């Protein structure tokens, strides 16, 4: 496979111009929400690459090489030589629910030789959990599903996704990879510390949380955030909620997408089951960076050609200017032969460790590596 990368600066145009001679079969464009909304990026990219599918996703920060940028678009054009690619699109408003959207997508992609589905979804209107369950519902277990939910720089108001058109809200794009020459690995790790008392979910409907231990959940968040409560929902990223499972591996982390002050509720990127045991999580700087390195180790491919990182917007809020350290640790692990791209998302999609059934993660660094073998 061959990869060509270039960078677009919001309102300014190409920072590094792509080569018109390169003929990709798939182009990834991870870009700042304002750039995608205003700069008619699809037309610009199509001018450069008349052939191949172009996929656009809005972000809360773009990973380009070993840098993390804001107000840019990271464009990665890939030419897979031995792998067939198929792109499908879904509209959330066309489906009964997120689960059905996921089912529809995987049904359209499912076919002979399907190895991998990379899925990018609207990050506000979609219940990521249900979407992932829908995709998994009828899929052969050996198919690896990864991806992420689009973001909007931590504003949680509007995200954009598109394929071969200017991106729009409520869209889901999925790319199917076919053939036995493609080697895919994946890894996902958080690095957050659990703290405070273990609480029980006493009232929740799907991904909307009402009460913990009979107390209003939003009030608890506000109490813990102190002065930062004014920055809700963004500041809620500082204290993700961990749903405790029977063992550490089955722990799931959930990010708040929005708050409803009038109703006193919190909406999460994934479902919050009634009766679940939950605990607050808190950033530990070193461990977040370490977590990214662990995700790289899990993916266990020593010589990938392309590495797509989907990291959580919450990590970026915490790490701030030191956010690049987690990207650097991944780059160091895989070395300089690979091309690196990715974005900060509202939710990461990746199989649990030790399983190919994917699920929605929050607050993790999730890595998918690609390379084609002889």
């Amino acid at each position, binding site marked *: 496979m061959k990869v060509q990368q270039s960078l677009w600066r919001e309102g300014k145009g190409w920072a590094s111009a792509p080569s018109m001679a390169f003929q990709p079969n798939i182009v990834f464009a991870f870009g700042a929400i304002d750039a995608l909304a205003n700069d008619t990026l699809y037309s610009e990219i199509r001018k450069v690459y008349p052939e191949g599918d172009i996929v656009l996703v809005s972000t809360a920060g773009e990973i380009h090489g070993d840098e993390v940028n804001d107000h840019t678009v990271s464009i990665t054009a890939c030419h897979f030589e031995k792998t067939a690619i198929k792109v499908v699109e879904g509209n959330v408003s066309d489906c009964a629910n997120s689960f059905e959207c996921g089912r529809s997508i995987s049904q359209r992609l499912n076919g002979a030789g399907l190895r991998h589905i990379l899925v990018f979804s609207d990050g506000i209107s979609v219940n990521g959990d249900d979407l992932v369950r829908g995709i998994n519902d009828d899929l052969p277990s050996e198919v690896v599903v990864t991806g992420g939910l689009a973001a909007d720089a931590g504003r949680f108001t509007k995200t954009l996704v598109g394929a071969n058109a200017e991106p729009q809200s409520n869209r889901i794009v999925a790319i199917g990879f076919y053939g036995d020459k493609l080697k895919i690995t994946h890894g996902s790790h958080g690095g957050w510390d659990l703290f405070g008392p273990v609480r029980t979910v006493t009232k929740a409907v799907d991904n909307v949380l009402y009460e913990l231990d009979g107390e209003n959940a939003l009030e608890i968040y506000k109490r813990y955030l102190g002065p930062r409560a004014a920055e809700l929902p963004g500041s809620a990223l*500082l204290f993700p909620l961990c749903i405790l499972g029977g063992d550490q591996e089955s722990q799931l982390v959930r990010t708040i997408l929005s708050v409803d002050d009038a109703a006193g509720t919190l909406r999460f990127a994934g479902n919050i089951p009634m009766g679940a045991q939950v605990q607050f999580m808190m950033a530990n700087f070193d461990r977040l960076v370490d977590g990214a390195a662990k995700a790289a180790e899990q993916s266990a491919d020593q010589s990938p050609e392309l590495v797509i990182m989907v990291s959580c917007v919450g990590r970026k809020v915490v790490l701030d200017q030191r956010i690049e350290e987690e990207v650097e640790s991944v780059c160091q692990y895989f070395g300089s032969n690979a091309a690196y791209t990715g974005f900060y998302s509202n939710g990461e999609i990746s199989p649990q460790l030790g399983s190919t059934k994917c699920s929605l993660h929050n607050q993790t660094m999730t890595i998918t590596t690609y390379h084609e073998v002889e």
Partner: protein
Amino acid sequence: MTGKKYHRLLERQLKKFLPGYPEVSEEWEALLSAISNSYEHSDNDRVLMETAMRESSDELMAKKEAVNQMLARQSHVLETLKEAASTLFPDRPSLENEDLLQLADVVQEEIQKREIAETRKAQSDQRLLDIIESLNLGMARYDLDGRLTQVEPRFADIFGRSEADMIGLHASDLSGGLGSEDQSRIQFYFTSNVFESPYRKNGEELMWLLCTTAPLFDDAGCVEGGVIVVFDITSRKKLEQEMIEARKAAEAGLELRKTILANVSHELRTPVNAIVGMSALLASTELNEQQRDYLKTMRFSSDGLLVLIDDLLDVSRIEAGKVELEEIEFSIRENFSELTKALRLRAEEKGLLFDWKIDERIASRHQGDVHRLNQIITNLIGNAIKFTREGRVGLEITFASETNDAQEIRFSVIDTGIGIASERQAAVFHAFAQEDSSTTRKYGGTGLGLSISKRIVEMMGGQLILTSEKNVGTTFSFQIQLKKASSEALAVKTFNPDLKGASILLVEDNKVNQFLANALLNSWKANVDISEDGQDAIDRLKEKQYDLVLMDLQMPIMDGFEATEHIREVLNSKVPIVGLPANALNGERERSLEKGMDDYVSKPFQPEMLYEKIHGFIFRS
């Protein structure tokens, strides 16, 4: 530049270490902004961490407090549980050191024990039910409303219904088509009861059930319902019914035998009576010495025969309960002075000494059945004479006690005879029994006398007591109460019959009786006409006025009852009619009074009694 542009720490650092500050180049400004933002971010992070840590710490403290309270509560609960456990399981060794988990184990263990015990009890209950079932006992329970709440299979089977169908039924629903007025129908009592009840299963053949009920108590000891156990006794009941019928048949047979006996006795008595009567009449004629001797033998034999027949008749009548005691005023002294004359003669004929004595305190006159009293004494003294070969026979009449109205008097008959062995003493009172069968051959007699005497003494309220020693002698004694007569001094009656001028119609078909009665009436100077049957009597009464009618009952053509009815109703005559019933047993006397006769005189009639009755009717007014 003025004002604080950067983080305060960075401002101080810049003042201190950057010469020319606040003048900085444009390139430096971007760098300094980034540094300042890092400082701000770090401060914010610290504040956030502190807030979160404080909140978390507060919350954990509160939770710890809650846990402490819970622990305190649990330890209180543990103590309470221990107390409860030591009360519940008193035979358990001390629970003092047990913790909650061990206590739970203890309770678990005890519960298991109890479960086992309950299972055993249930099994034993089931065994009991099985036994009840196998005994063919039907069992069921009912509540306070008298509705069946639990029905065992055999119970349902007896009633020919299903167990489920019977739940909720009342006792009245089990009548089986028998009317509710039937007193012996099934009832659900709340007391212990045993009763027999008929039941018509499916409207078919009548069956009989033996039912037992018992109350059931709740834990507080209050009656909460009852239990009924039923047993099919139809076959036993049938057997019982057959036995009752057999007994009735046997009794009827016995009754018939008695009637035959009475009738035979009567039929025997009539001719013997005629012989006696004729002998008496013959004795009053001119006879030579040889004829007189023959006549004496004939009278002795016929007297004996008459006694025998009278005894038989008495036994029958006593057994049939037909004997009634009469209330006659009499003097004990005069009576026994008279009676003993004849008996003394008989004793002295056999070479025995005879004496009798009477207590001075005994009143001069009493009321009672003197004839029956004489019968007893005659019998006892007769026996004494019969069974005594030498020595004496005596009668002692002694005073026992007295009230204003009556006296207790003891009569004792003493002999120096052969005596009666003690083991035989009880048997001598039985009818037809004598000391042993050889006695009859040696001494004669019917063996009925003692039995009759005993029964009459009992009717008089006394008891005939025997004391005897073999070969020394025997004493028969009894004590009875006799009322004192209201007027002790009554004129001594003399019998001088005189019916001169009276016209009497004698209605009698039997020639002997006709002859006897006619002879007696003629000797009393009455004018007598004779009819052979009821119809002839009516015809005569139409033609002639009579002072009195003597009416036999059983006659050809028209019997005495019908004739009397006719006389009273058709002839509308009030002529005194005295019936002459022959049979003591069949209620003829009562019937004759019912049909309109004024009185009766039983045959064979005693001349004094017949005279008294006739005299009373004709000359009283």
